C-alpha cells in the first residue's frame, strides 16, 4: 500500500522549525547524489550520516544519480503518477535545476526558512544565482567550485595562462591537448567563449540569440584552428572527465581539467593523478559555480530533507567539507558573519600548500550564464565538432 501523501510546502511552512525537526525524527531521507568520488562518499557516509542519526534521528539513504538521471527519474515518475515518489533530497545545479524547475518537479519554496540560511553568502552572485537563475527558495546552496585546468609541473614547467597562449601551446604541441564531450568539456568551451568575447558580460541577462551567435562563431573558429593539433587530431573526444584524467595521468596528454579547482589535489591524494599535478587558472577568467540541494516534488519526506539540508549548511558540516583531506569543497557561508569560534576556525584552516591562492581564485571567477547557452552549445558542438558537419 502507498503511504499517506506527504505534507505540501505550504503546510510545512506554517509549522515552526522545531516542529519540522520533530516531524523528521525517526525518518529516512533518500538523497539522489553523484556517488563517484570516494572522498565525497566518505564525507557523506562516515561524517554526515552518523551525525544526522545521532542528532536528528534521521537515517540517510544515498542513491547514485546525476543531473540528467535525476531529471529523467522525476519526469517518468510524474508521468506514471508516482506520489509519493522515492527521492527526497537531490544534489543539483544549473541546467538540471532549470529543467526541474521549469517542469515543476521541485518542491518548495523552502530554502529560505532554514535556520542556517542566515549564514549563506548571499552577496556572492556565484551563490545567489544558479546559472543566472534565482533559486527562489527551491534549492539550498551546499558548496562552490571553480573551473581549472590541470597540468603537470614536471612535464609543463611553464604552462600557458591565457586562452590565446593555450592556443599557441596546443599548436606547438600537437596531440597533447584534449577536452571531454560531457559537462566539464562544455564548461571549458564556455570559458573559451567568454575569453574570445571579451568576458562574460555579453552573455548575461538571459539567453539572447545574437549573443550566442557571435560568441559561438568565435568559439568554433578557435576550435577549428586548434582542432588538427588536438588529441587524435580532434576526431575523438573523451567520453567524460574521468577518461581525460586517465589520459593525462598516463602521459597521453599534458592537460586535464575539472569543474572543481581542488579536485586535482584530491585525486593526487587518491593516487589517481601524478604527485606533480597542479591546478591552473586561465587569466581570461574561469567559470565558478555553486552546487545545491533541492527537494523532489513528490518527496515522501520533505521535512526530513529540509533538516538534512539545514545540517549540510551548518558551519561544522561546511567546515569539515572544506578540509583539504576531506573534500576541499568551498564553503557557501559568509565566514565573516559566523560566530567568532567558527570564523577563527575557517580563517586558520590549513590550506593545501599546492592549492590556488584564494585571492586569485576570486579574481578570475566568472559566473555562469543562462542554461540555454549550454544546451545550444552542446547541440551545436555535437553537430559541428563531434560529428564533423560544418
Amino acid at each position: 500500500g502507498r503511504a499517506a501523501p506527504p505534507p505540501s510546502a505550504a503546510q510545512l511552512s506554517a509549522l515552526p522549525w522545531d516542529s519540522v525537526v520533530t516531524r523528521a525524527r525517526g525518518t529516512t531521507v533518500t538523497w539522489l547524489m553523484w556517488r563517484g568520488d570516494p572522498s565525497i562518499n566518505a564525507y557523506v557516509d562516515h561524517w554526515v550520516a552518523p551525525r544526522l542519526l545521532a542528532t536528528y534521528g534521521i537515517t540517510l539513504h544515498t542513491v547514485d544519480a546525476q543531473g540528467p538521471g535525476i531529471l529523467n527519474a522525476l519526469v517518468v515518475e510524474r508521468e506514471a503518477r508516482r506520489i509519493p515518489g522515492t527521492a527526497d533530497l537531490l544534489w543539483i545545479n544549473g541546467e538540471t535545476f532549470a529543467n526541474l524547475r521549469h517542469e515543476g518537479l521541485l518542491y518548495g519554496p523552502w530554502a529560505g526558512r532554514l535556520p542556517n540560511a542566515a549564514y549563506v553568502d548571499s552577496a556572492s552572485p556565484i551563490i545567489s544565482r544558479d546559472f543566472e537563475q534565482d533559486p527562489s527558495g527551491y534549492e539550498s546552496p551546499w558548496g562552490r567550485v571553480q573551473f581549472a585546468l590541470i597540468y603537470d609541473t614536471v612535464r609543463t614547467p611553464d604552462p600557458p595562462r591565457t586562452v590565446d597562449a593555450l592556443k599557441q601551446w596546443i599548436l606547438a604541441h600537437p596531440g597533447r591537448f584534449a577536452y571531454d564531450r560531457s559537462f566539464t568539456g562544455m564548461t571549458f568551451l564556455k570559458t573559451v567563449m567568454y575569453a574570445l568575447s571579451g568576458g562574460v558580460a555579453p552573455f548575461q541577462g538571459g539567453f539572447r540569440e545574437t549573443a550566442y551567435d557571435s560568441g559561438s562563431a568565435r568559439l568554433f573558429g578557435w576550435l577549428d584552428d586548434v582542432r588538427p593539433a588536438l588529441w587524435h587530431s580532434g576526431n575523438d573526444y573523451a567520453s567524460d572527465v574521468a577518461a581525460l584524467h586517465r589520459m593525462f595521468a598516463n602521459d597521453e596528454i599534458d592537460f586535464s581539467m575539472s569543474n572543481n579547482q581542488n579536485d586535482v589535489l584530491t585525486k593526487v591524494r587518491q593516487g589517481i593523478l601524478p604527485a606533480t599535478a597542479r591546478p591552473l587558472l586561465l587569466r581570461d577568467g574561469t567559470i565558478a559555480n555553486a552546487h545545491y540541494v533541492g527537494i523532489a516534488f513528490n518527496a515522501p519526506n520533505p521535512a526530513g530533507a529540509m533538516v538534512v539540508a539545514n545540517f549540510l549548511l551548518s558551519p561544522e558540516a561546511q567546515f569539515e567539507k572544506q578540509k583539504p583531506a576531506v573534500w576541499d569543497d568551498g564553503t557557501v557561508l559568509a565566514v565573516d558573519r559566523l560566530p567568532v569560534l567558527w570564523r577563527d576556525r575557517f580563517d586558520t584552516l590549513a590550506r593545501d600548500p599546492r592549492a590556488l591562492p584564494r585571492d586569485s581564485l576570486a579574481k578570475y571567477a566568472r559566473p555562469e550564464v543562462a542554461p540555454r547557452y549550454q544546451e545550444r552549445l552542446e547541440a551545436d558542438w555535437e553537430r559541428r565538432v563531434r560529428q564533423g558537419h560544418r
Partner: protein
Amino acid sequence: MTRSAAFGIAAAAIVASPVLLGVGYSVLASFGLAGVGATGFTTARVARVLGAAATWHALWWSASTALVATALAGIAAVLVGVVARRGRRIDRLTQLLSVLPLPIPHIVAAVVGVLLLAQSGLLARLAYAAGMIHTPAQMPVLVADRLGIGFTLTLAWKEFPFLALVTFSLLATRGVAMEEAARTLGADAWTALRRVTVPMLWRGLLPAMVVVFIVIAGSYEAATLLGPSNPLPLPTLTYDRYLDIDLTRRGDAYVLTMLGLALAAVGVTIHEWVRAWSERG
C-alpha cells in the same frame, strides 16, 4: 490453432511481455502520444531522427563491429574446438580454459579492455618496456577509435567462451563419427577437417553466432567505455538521448529504441530460421 499451441504462444508472450509493452510505449512516444512533451500525433520526430545521418552511422557502427567480433569469436571457437576435439588430458584442459571466462560480465570485459588496450594500457607499457614505443601516442589507437578495434577485440574475447562451449558439445555429439567416416572414405586428416568437421561445426554454430551478434550489437556498457565519440554506438546514443538535459530531445531516444528493437526482431527471425535449418543436420 490447437489448445496447446495457444497455451505455448501465450506462455512465451508472457516472457516477452516487457518487450512487447516496451515496443508499444516506444511507438507511442515516438509519435508524440506519450512521454514528456507529448504533443499529439506527429511524425516529425520519427522523420527527424531517421533522417539524421548520425542515427544510421550509429546503427552501422554497432552492426559492423558486432559482425566482425562475432566472426572472430566464431573462428576462434572452431579453431579451439578442432584442436581440442579428442578427449586427451591436454584437450580437456584447453576446453576448461576456453570456457572459464564465460561468466565475465560485459562491464568487466570492458574495464579489462580499457586497462589493457588503451594507448597507455598494459600492452602499451609492455611495448614501452620492450623499447618499441616511447610515448603512448606511438601506440595504435584501440580504444574509443572510430573502427572500434578495441571494442571488437574485447567482445570477441568476451563471447568466445560461449561459442567454444557450443562447439565442444557439437563435437562431442557428432564430431568424431563424422570425421571417422570421412577418413575411411579416403580423406586425409586435413581434408576431413576442411571438408567435413569444420563445415559441420559452422552449421551447428550459426544459431549461437546470431545470438552473439545480437548481444554484441546491443551492448551498452562496453560500447560506452570502448566505443568512439563519432559515431556513437547505437545503445550509447540511445541512452545519451534518453538522459538529454534538453527535454525536447528526450523523445528521440524512443525512436532509437524502436530501431534497436527492430534490429532485435530481425535478429530473432534470422535466429529462428537458422536454428530450424541447423537442427535438421
